[in-house]
């Protein structure tokens, strides 16, 4: 399951969905809003998604992970909206019989999701500026609002 959520993510509930007597390994990844990026003091983040395509592309990525690794189940949920420092932005959980597959698939899913799923991140800095990450280098005309 790959889901875009405008509500806070509940990792315990998601991991509970993954319980399976065949599983010996559960690998999870959490992306948190951190207080710095590229040397800038970050105060908050906005995440925005093109949800219908994001969920389709996310489901494709989960399918690829199942082909590449021996996985019993995998879930990824990405938060959208306004997030504060320390907030959980994305959660990935994978269960497998063995840990190599659980780690490999978990890493594959987050790497591909960050590269391919249409989700955008706008950083708000302590100096008042904002940048849409990846859309342009900070300070260029395309990048956002200079402080």
């Amino acid at each position, binding site marked *: 399951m790959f889901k875009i959520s405008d509500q806070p993510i509940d990792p315990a509930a998601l991991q509970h969905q993954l319980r399976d007597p065949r599983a010996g390994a559960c690998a999870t990844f959490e992306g948190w809003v951190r207080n710095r990026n590229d040397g800038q003091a970050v105060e908050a983040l906005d995440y925005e998604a093109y949800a219908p*395509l994001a969920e389709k592309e996310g489901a494709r990525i989960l399918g690829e992970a199942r082909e590449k690794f021996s996985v019993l189940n995998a879930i990824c949920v990405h938060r959208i909206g306004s997030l504060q420092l320390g907030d959980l932005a994305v959660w990935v959980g994978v269960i497998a019989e063995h840990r190599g597959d659980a780690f490999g698939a978990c890493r594959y899913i987050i790497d591909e999701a*960050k590269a391919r799923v249409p989700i955008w991140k706008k950083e708000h800095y302590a100096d008042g500026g904002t940048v849409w990450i990846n859309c342009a280098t900070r300070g260029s005309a395309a990048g956002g609002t200079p402080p």
Partner: protein
Amino acid sequence: MTKTIHVQYFAILREQRGLAQEKLTTATATAAEFYDELRGRHGFTLEAGRLRVAVNDEFVPWGAPLREGDRLVFIPPVAGG
């Protein structure tokens, strides 16, 4: 022959356009030509080479032909997580 196209904007494109979606008529034949037309009209800073494009909620090549009633999304570089 002109067609009516529904366009949805996200992230930096939404801010540069000042709205999240609009209905437009165009005489262009492909997604690429249509984006160039919009770029000229709205002053988008991103070149097509940095974007992907989706028609009716599926990624398509830039050369995909436009059809009456298509829903288009131009997709800036993503930054999930």
